[in-house]
């Protein structure tokens, strides 16, 4: 809230200096109530020579902070009613109705505010304003844009303003101006520019302008195509990283230890619910640090799943080593029990896990390519987990023992390795990684009792395709499947892509049952 007040103050100072044009009660009323057409007209008129009060009122409208007392609009700021015209504090009765803004109204309000902010002394405010305006400018904004352009000092913003001006000029009655605009717009990389050019092309009559439009459209589209291609690759990598996370735990429990663990998905689900629990606790006891709950959730999710995994191994699975069919049935039964347990504790409905604020939104790379933060974080997280697992398996004593037990249990035992304990540790590690995957999944998908069911097939697919007993194979398989899936999806649609990938895997396994990489190990020999 202080930030917003600061903004107002700034705008206020700026505008008082420029012109003092008082907001009248009639204007305020016509902006807040009535038919949208009339409201938009009143708003556009008010923006032309807005004073600080008008801007404050428009800001309040955009924030849905205006109520109608009878027919008089009143701003409600920090719980206090303020008359927009006199700025005096007034009481707001309970019967006051909210001013309703639909999408169109909200868009107009934002555009109006952005237009006013174009003249702000702060570079960042201007940048944000230009971004909000995007391609949505009409000829009416031209004088304002000219003015902003004349006073703009930052070179990159100047460039953007020029494009905005060109976009506004595209609707001009003067063919020469349209020609200039059409040529200038060729240097844009915005999807909105394409929209503008396409729409203009449909109504354009002048031959010369038409040719210029066509040419600009061509260059803009070529630039946009790059964004599309990179976007497809990124979504492939993102899906791949999710597949990698869900399969990595299984690569240890199934790949290295040879346990067909049908409850793997449920271990992920436990990780996701652990994340949810941490979120709820943060909301209750540490609302100030809510944005960082995810960091606290990581170890909790890991430990919760690892402990459940260890308990499973100790109580059930260790009695079933070497009996794959019984293991399969037993773990399947356990998965049902775990699901029912969660249903009893948390209810059958999905629970809502919120993204921390630093994970929502995305970074704009190209005009039409923005990478969502949550996906970027998950890709980075997958890499980190992979590095951690690799280090643990290849570089530590525990990893050495795990590999030793995997390759030859009796010899390892003869060397004094407590194989039973190593089994438990390895299984707990695999389960814990499943918990981490669950924590990551909670940021992109639904958290419900059957969360694991949706991923169990995928994770087995990745491990089998990569080659049982191989971490590197798992990585290649996950990335390969992710990118293949996304490219097929763009080409055939989601339903067919899923089928095509399954068919591909069936054929691949027929031709090469040992997976991409084959390795000798206990399970490979069995």
């Amino acid at each position, binding site marked *: 809230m202080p930030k917003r007040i600061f903004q107002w103050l700034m705008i206020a100072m700026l505008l008082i200096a420029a012109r003092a044009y008082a907001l009248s009660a009639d204007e305020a009323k016509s902006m807040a109530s009535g038919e*949208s*057409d009339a409201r938009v007209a009143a708003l556009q008129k008010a923006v032309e020579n807005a004073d600080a009060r008008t801007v404050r009122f428009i800001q309040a409208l955009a924030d849905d902070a205006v109520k109608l007392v009878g027919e008089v609009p009143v701003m409600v700021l920090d719980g206090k009613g303020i008359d927009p015209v006199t700025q005096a504090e007034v009481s707001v009765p309970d019967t006051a109705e909210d001013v*309703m803004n*639909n*999408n*169109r109204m*909200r*868009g107009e309000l*934002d555009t109006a505010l952005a237009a006013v902010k174009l003249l702000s002394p702060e570079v960042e405010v201007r940048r944000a304003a230009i971004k909000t305006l995007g391609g949505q400018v009409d000829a009416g904004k031209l004088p304002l844009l000219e003015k902003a352009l004349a006073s703009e000092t930052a070179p990159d913003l100047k460039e953007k303003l020029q494009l905005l001006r060109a976009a506004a000029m595209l609707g001009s009655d003067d063919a020469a101006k349209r020609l200039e605009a059409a040529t200038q717009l060729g240097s844009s990389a915005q*999807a*909105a520019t*394409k*929209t503008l050019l*396409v*729409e203009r092309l449909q109504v354009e009559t002048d031959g010369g302008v038409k040719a210029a439009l066509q040419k600009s459209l061509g260059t803009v589209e070529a630039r*946009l195509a790059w964004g*599309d291609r990179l*976007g*497809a690759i990124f*979504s492939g990598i*993102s*899906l791949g990283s*999710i597949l990698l996370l869900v399969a990595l735990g299984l690569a240890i429990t199934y790949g290295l230890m040879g346990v067909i663990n049908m409850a793997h998905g449920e271990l992920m689900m436990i990780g996701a619910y652990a994340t949810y629990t941490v979120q709820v606790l943060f909301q209750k006891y540490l609302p100030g640090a809510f944005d960082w709950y995810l960091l606290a959730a990581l170890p909790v999710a890991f430990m919760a799943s690892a402990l459940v995994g260890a308990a499973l191994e100790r109580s059930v699975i260790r009695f079933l080593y070497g009996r794959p069919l019984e293991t399969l049935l037993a773990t399947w039964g356990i998965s049902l029990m775990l699901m029912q347990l969660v249903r009893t504790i948390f*209810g*059958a*409905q*999905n*629970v*809502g896990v*919120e*993204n921390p604020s630093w994970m*929502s*939104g*995305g970074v*704009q790379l190209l005009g*039409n390519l*923005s990478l*969502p*933060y*949550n*996906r970027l974080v998950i890709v980075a997280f997958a890499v980190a987990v992979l590095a951690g697992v690799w280090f643990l398996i290849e570089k530590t004593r525990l990893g050495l023992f795990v590999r030793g037990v995997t390759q030859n249990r009796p010899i390892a035992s003869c060397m004094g390795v407590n194989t039973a304990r190593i089994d438990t540790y390895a299984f707990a590690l695999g389960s814990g990684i499943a918990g981490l995957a669950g924590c990551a999944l909670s940021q*992109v*998908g*639904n958290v*419900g009792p059957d969360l694991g069911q*949706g991923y169990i097939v995928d994770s087995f697919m990745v491990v089998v395709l990569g080659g049982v007993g191989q971490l590197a194979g798992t990585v290649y398989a996950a990335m390969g499947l992710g990118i293949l899936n*996304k490219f097929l*999806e*763009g080409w055939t*649609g*989601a*339903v067919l892509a*899923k089928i095509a990938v399954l068919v591909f895997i069936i054929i691949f396994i027929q031709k090469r049952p040992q997976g991409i990489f084959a390795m000798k190990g206990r399970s490979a020999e069995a």
Partner: protein
Amino acid sequence: MQRRFTLKALTAAVALTTLSAVPAFAADTIKVGILHSLSGTMAISETVLKDTVLMAIDEINAKGGVLGKKLEPVVVDPASNWPLFAEKTKQLLTQDKVSVIFGCWTSVSRKSVLPVVEELNGLLFYPVQYEGEELSKNVFYTGAAPNQQAIPAVDYLMSKEGGAAKRWVLLGTDYVYPRTTNKILRAYLKSKGVKESDIDEKYTPFGHSDYQTIVADIKKFSAGGKTAVVSTINGDSNVPFYKELGNAGLNAKDVPVVAFSVGEEELRGVDTKPLVGHLAAWNYFQSIKNPTNTEFIKKWSDYAKAKGIAGHKDKPLTNDPMEATYIGINMWKQAVEKAKSTDVDKVIAAMAGQTFKAPSGIVSKMDEKNHHLHKSVFIGEIKADGQFNVVWKTPGPVKAKPWSPYIEGNDKKPDEPAKK
């Protein structure tokens, strides 16, 4: 010999007691079947409808019941299993001998129940919006037909107020309801002069959770002109879809998404802040202000608190199918009183033209012929608190057209169920 005799005697005795017990029992109560999934994937949406029927039954019983008899609910759980819906219906009609059934959500389950109620001459009240293309003498449809939901929504998005959309993405889950609805919408859009190249139809499997490609495609498509998305995505896939929309920076001002299966209950537990401004089309919203609705919400809140219904006892929500269920059972009660009997054929005849003061603020009327309700259509924008802002509504109730005129050959079909 002795043993066999004992067995026979026992069977006979049991049969006799059952026979004599049933009429005696039936004399004081009227049995009402409730056929909603209480487990499985659809439990999320359907459980609350079971509670709505129970609440209405309590209310009717408190006022003295129907024809001087109390209503007795018979609750069964078809567990989101489509063939089980048919079995449970048979059980309700032949063993429990219920006078009426309130149930089903998905069109698949209704199609599964249909032959059973028709064969045994039962009576089903179906409370959910659906794709039309069906009209049975034994079913009353209290949810919306396509012309009471889908078509007005598209009209709104085409209007200046709704953003004057020129291009359309029809996005749905891959099954009968979205496919049929989109077939109707495609024909409708074409009749409004929308070109084939400006319509993009997409489907995802049930439970799909990775909407990156789809959202990227929508973004690409929307660069070609003002675009609106019509979503018939069902179930919890909606959450990742809306999340992806928000993260990709597609907000409602640029590309509005209108959903037909997303209501107050579905938005529970979803972070609605990035979704503000996206739309839903229904015949009822909890946020509608009128005395009938205030009373309805209060009744539901009190009932949910008294019965400790999970979720609703802390945050009571009402939605469109709940309202439709509530109208359905009350109309049935009125029809039984008019017919002075629970006989199915007499009740069906008495249902024609029944009216009821609906929480949506209109006097809802059962059509004299086509077994569908006349309903007002509302379009709401999602607010930050998960409720809806009504931004558009029809001037009055709209008559249902179960046979959409936009599907070929439907113009010859009669607007009433075939007589048997």
